């Protein structure tokens, strides 16, 4: 184990590399030879008919093996490995093994090289536990011994002897960097190698395999065990999305044990899913549920209730076009709690109605099963009611009593309404009286306040003048050297009070008090309509007395009626019991039961469409959010559908969660969220509520929240996840772009390498005249929204159909065309060259827009 020079290192690695390629050659050649051999045997025909079948089988087996080997060699040929780790066994320093780590995403096996070497896929592998140990070894870049357990549980220990990063392209060794032991100064630095690799990546903007460029913190994140909740707070371009996908790739073996059913990947937009699709496919992660949070909500609602898909709703799931104020109001904790209360109260109200109609006690807990049971009881009760009433049709006395009973019920309802009106009037009189008292009191108070204040002001002046006289007398005596100064100071005070700044302030305050008095008097006058206050109070007292008399009278009537109703109901129940032959629990009104049943059978949609909808309507109206979509039908009629936004779905799910705690939902044990800052606390609460045992891996950046007033600002407080990994280096963008952002938008991103002057972003000042030249480059335009796009076209002097405008609802076309992205749509994507039209963007949006550019950036504001 020693530090060697760059030349020697290069020569040695060249030798290992050739050995690897020779192995590939040998494998291919051996497979081809076998095929040739089998073919020759068949051609010679030196076997009987019975054997011919077997020979053909052997040939096709050999051909299959050849194809597999050719495929394997084919995929490894371009870059067989990115790192070479030499280890020795703990008990024998001279027993060396060489591991060539490959980042080839489709390599699922270990390829032996020579007698002590192996090309190994760089990911956790159950069948080859050494892979995890090597990952740890590569990440730590230290010489400490590393132990691991083999498939049989035996413990193995190895000691790293050297760790080298390599850059091989089509059998040519371009570079080699020794990471351990610490390299000699004469070697190329690891940073330079990283920089050159990043530069190469920038030539083709897409999500790519970045294993060979992974840094310490990224390794930490990728290898974190699957039981740990964490957040990755990564600046723009820090490789958050890649880290997330690489983590899934690295843990593929472990995660796929349950057929990927336990993993949920939440990504922001369809465009992002299109963009990441290729890497997802290459990493064989396509089986993972990958959707947006809104899509997840719809899936869950359909899983909760098969009737949900038939409900007449229209969906607007992107929040791109919703105003900040609306999102803030709707996701605000206070509002969420308020809606929760509305839901709880509504559930209780409808269940209460059912229980009351049945004459049973309310349940302690309300679930779908409880509701179902109440509906069942209501059905039975209504059936019994119908049979009984039909049979008693012939009983004249019963019919007569029932008629009178129902009339009494109507009368008592009428009287109750009257009583309510009287009660309301009493309250109204009291309220008017309170209002009048308050207005009179206000006038008196402000007049007193003015009088007190004027008195104090006069006293202040009087006291100051008195003091001025005193110091003036001292001045006249001529014995006090300080007297002139004291006189001057006191004169200032008097002048200030009587003509200076204080005087003006006092005058202003006096005007204010006068205005206040005028306003209070005007309000009182508005109330009294020029009538005397005493007369109004007398009138109120008189009316109050009258209404109280009426109230007393009607209360008596109601009392009397209720007694009679009770007598009638007793009689009717007894008659009914006699008919049924037993003392039954009888409900005398069918309509109550029907009504209760109607709501209970569709309780979820009732609660949403009545209570939640009504509670959210004012805020939607305030911000001009469309609530209903009207469609013209062929017959001239209209069809109205409620428009459901993501926040509506969130509350809808809340209702289902309360009623169906044991519902059979897709079960997730690992929830990975990309762009996690654009979810809201309420979303995280829902996810935690639905999947209390799930592990959360959240990737995001609080500085890239696109909506100004919502989203996640503090990870731990708002998501409940305390482990936060920071990623502060931007690997995606050139140093020039990162520095541009740091300078212009106060970001504090770090970058790799130095600023190349030629790569500095170009700030465009005259878009009208320079657009033709800029447009000749292959670039995408990023704007805030569609309105900004139209403004951009006007500024640049181009037609609006010059670009395809893409927002969060769009799907990218495969055709080659000029594209303009809204900032919400561009989130998470990368492009070679970008023109940022920054007008109307927030600071966060500008950072997001600028950091989409891998190479050239034009900026106009």
């Amino acid at each position, binding site marked *: 184990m020693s530090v060697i020079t760059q030349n020697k290192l290069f020569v040695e690695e060249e030798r290992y590399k050739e050995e690897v390629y020779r192995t590939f050659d040998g494998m291919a050649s051996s497979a081809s030879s076998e095929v040739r051999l089998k073919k020759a045997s068949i051609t010679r025909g030196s076997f009987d008919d019975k054997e011919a079948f077997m020979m053909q089988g052997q040939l096709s087996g050999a051909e299959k093996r050849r194809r597999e080997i050719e495929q394997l060699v084919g995929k490894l040929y371009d870059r067989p490995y990115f790192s070479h780790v030499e280890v020795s066994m703990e008990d024998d320093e001279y027993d060396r093994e060489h591991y060539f780590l490959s980042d080839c995403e489709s390599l699922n096996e270990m390829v032996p090289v020579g007698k002590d070497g192996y090309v190994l896929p760089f990911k956790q592998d159950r069948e080859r536990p050494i892979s995890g140990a090597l990952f740890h070894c590569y990440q730590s870049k230290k010489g400490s011994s590393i132990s691991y357990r083999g498939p049989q549980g035996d413990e193995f220990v190895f000691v790293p002897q050297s760790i080298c990063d390599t850059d091989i392209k089509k059998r040519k060794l371009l570079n080699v960097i020794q990471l351990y032991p610490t390299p000699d100064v004469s070697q190329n630095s690891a940073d330079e190698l990283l920089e050159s690799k990043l530069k190469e990546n920038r030539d083709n903007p897409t999500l790519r395999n970045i294993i060979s460029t992974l840094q310490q913190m990224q390794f930490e994140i990728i290898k974190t065990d699957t039981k740990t909740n964490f957040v990755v707070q990564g600046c723009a371009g820090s490789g958050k999305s890649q880290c997330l996908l690489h983590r899934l790739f690295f843990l593929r073996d472990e995660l796929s044990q349950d057929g990927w059913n336990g993993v949920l990947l939440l990504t922001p937009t369809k465009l992002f899913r299109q963009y990441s699709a290729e890497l997802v496919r290459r990493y064989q992660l396509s089986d993972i549920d990958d959707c947006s949070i809104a899509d997840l909500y719809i899936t869950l609602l359909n899983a909760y209730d098969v009737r949900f898909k038939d409900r007449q709703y229209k969906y607007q799931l992107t929040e791109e076009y919703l105003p900040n104020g609306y999102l803030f109001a709707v996701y605000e904790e206070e509002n969420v709690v308020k809606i929760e209360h509305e839901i709880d109260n509504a559930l209780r109200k409808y269940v209460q109605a059912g229980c009351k109609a049945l004459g049973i006690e309310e349940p302690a807990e309300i679930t779908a099963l409880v509701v179902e049971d109440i509906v069942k009881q209501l059905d039975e009760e209504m059936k019994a009611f119908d049979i009984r009433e039909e049979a008693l049709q012939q009983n004249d006395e019963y019919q007569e009593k029932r008629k009178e009973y129902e009339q009494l019920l109507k009368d008592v309802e009428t009287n109750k309404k009257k009583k309510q009106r009287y009660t309301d009037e009493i309250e109204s009189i009291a309220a008017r009286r309170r209002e009048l008292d308050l207005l009179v009191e206000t006038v008196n108070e402000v007049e007193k306040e003015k009088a007190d204040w004027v008195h104090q002001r006069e006293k202040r002046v009087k006291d100051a003048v008195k003091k001025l006289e005193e110091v003036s*007398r001292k*001045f006249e005596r001529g014995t006090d*050297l300080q007297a*002139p*100064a004291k006189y*001057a100071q006191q004169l200032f005070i*008097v002048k200030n*009070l*009587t003509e200076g700044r204080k005087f003006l302030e006092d005058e202003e305050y006096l005007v204010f008090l006068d205005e206040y008095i005028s306003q209070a008097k005007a309000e009182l006058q508005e109330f009294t309509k020029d009538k005397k206050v005493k007369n109004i109070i007398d009138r109120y007292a008189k009316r109050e007395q009258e209404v109280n008399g009426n109230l007393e009278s009607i209360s008596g009537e109601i009392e009397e009626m209720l007694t009679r109703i009770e007598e009638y109901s007793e009689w009717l129940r007894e008659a009914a019991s006699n008919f049924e032959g037993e003392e039954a629990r009888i409900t005398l009104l069918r309509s109550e039961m029907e009504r209760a049943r109607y709501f209970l059978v569709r309780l979820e949609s009732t609660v949403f469409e009545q209570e939640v909808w009504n509670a959210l309507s004012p805020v939607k109206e305030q911000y001009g959010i469309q609530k209903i979509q009207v469609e013209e039908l062929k017959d001239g009629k209209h069809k109205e559908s409620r428009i459901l936004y993501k926040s509506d779905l969130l509350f809808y799910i809340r209702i289902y969660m309360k009623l169906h705690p044991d519902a059979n939902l897709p079960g997730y044990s690992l929830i990975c969220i990309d762009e996690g800052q654009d979810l809201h606390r309420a979303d995280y609460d829902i996810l935690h509520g639905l999947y209390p045992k799930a592990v959360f891996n959240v990737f995001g950046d609080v500085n890239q929240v696109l909506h100004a007033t919502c989203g996640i600002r503090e990870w731990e407080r708002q998501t409940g996840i305390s482990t936060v990994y920071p990623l502060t280096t931007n690997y995606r963008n050139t140093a020039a772009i990162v520095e541009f952002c740091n300078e212009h938008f106060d970001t504090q991103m770090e970058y790799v390498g130095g600023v190349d002057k030629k790569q500095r972003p170009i700030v465009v000042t005259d878009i009208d005249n320079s657009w033709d030249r800029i447009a000749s480059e292959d670039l995408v335009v990023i704007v805030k929204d569609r309105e900004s796009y139209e403004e951009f076209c006007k500024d640049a002097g181009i037609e609006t159909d010059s670009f395809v405008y893409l927002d969060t609802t769009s799907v990218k076309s495969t055709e080659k065309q000029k594209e303009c992205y809204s900032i919400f749509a561009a989130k998470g994507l990368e492009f070679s060259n970008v023109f940022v039209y920054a007008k109307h963007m927030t600071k966060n949006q500008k950072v997001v827009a600028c950091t989409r550019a891998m190479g050239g950036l034009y900026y106009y504001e």
Partner: protein
Amino acid sequence: MNSRAEKFHLQNKELVQNLYNGLCSLLDNLEMNTMPGEEEKGSLSGLLDSYAESLKRHEKSNMAVIRRVNAPGADSFDENNVIKELSGHNQSIELLLRLGREKMVDVADKLLLEENGKLLVKCGYCEEIIVEKTGRRYYVLSSKGEKSFRNKTIINQLRKDVNSAIVPTEIIFETSKWSNIYSQRIDMLSFYYKNYRQTSDYIAFTLDELKEMVFGCEIEDGQDVRYTFACVFENESKDENVNQLKSLAGSGLIDQILLLTESGEQQMDLVIKDGLDPQLIPELSYFVMQ
């Protein structure tokens, strides 16, 4: 001999003695019927020329520093008239008080050019003067104005209109009694407050019986005792004035005396030669009026 002649003789003691001796010698010769020779005549003639020159110089140096421009006619002071003229004219009363406090107010002061100022001029409460040395023109209180200030009935009546009409009689100093040095110091203070402090709110007052050590004190909020002194001196009283300044600054009762000088050289002279050194006497500070 009046004081001015006595002062002249003291200043030209040697010249006067030589001339006296020359005349005595000429008289002696004449009594002895001896005609004075050319040399003797020439010497005496030279002495006479020098005497005449000294007289001229002395006359010039003792010329009044201020000149009245439009003194009001007869000093017609009538208590009732004054009350009648000023009652209800608060701004005019304020201006009159200011004239009393500051002694000299620039004729170009915009308040004096307004209606309220014109009333004071028209009714003879102030008169215009020119400071010969600087050519600056001011209004000062006239005899009528001064008398109005000293009249308790008038002041009590004016206080009904203006609360701040409380002026210590100590402040009032008749213009006719101003010495040249007093006028020059007031001129300098007025110029300083108007041009460097942009304030007209100050009082000019004296701290000695001769009424020559005149100070300015700004009418401002605060507790500190801060005075301003214009460094204009006469040779014969300079040492005494300097000692007075040192004594005041060292009294422990005054927080700051700002000394106004006409040049940096003057400041250096006062620091080095006269010992008015802010490093030694921290209560002192300087302001050079360019």
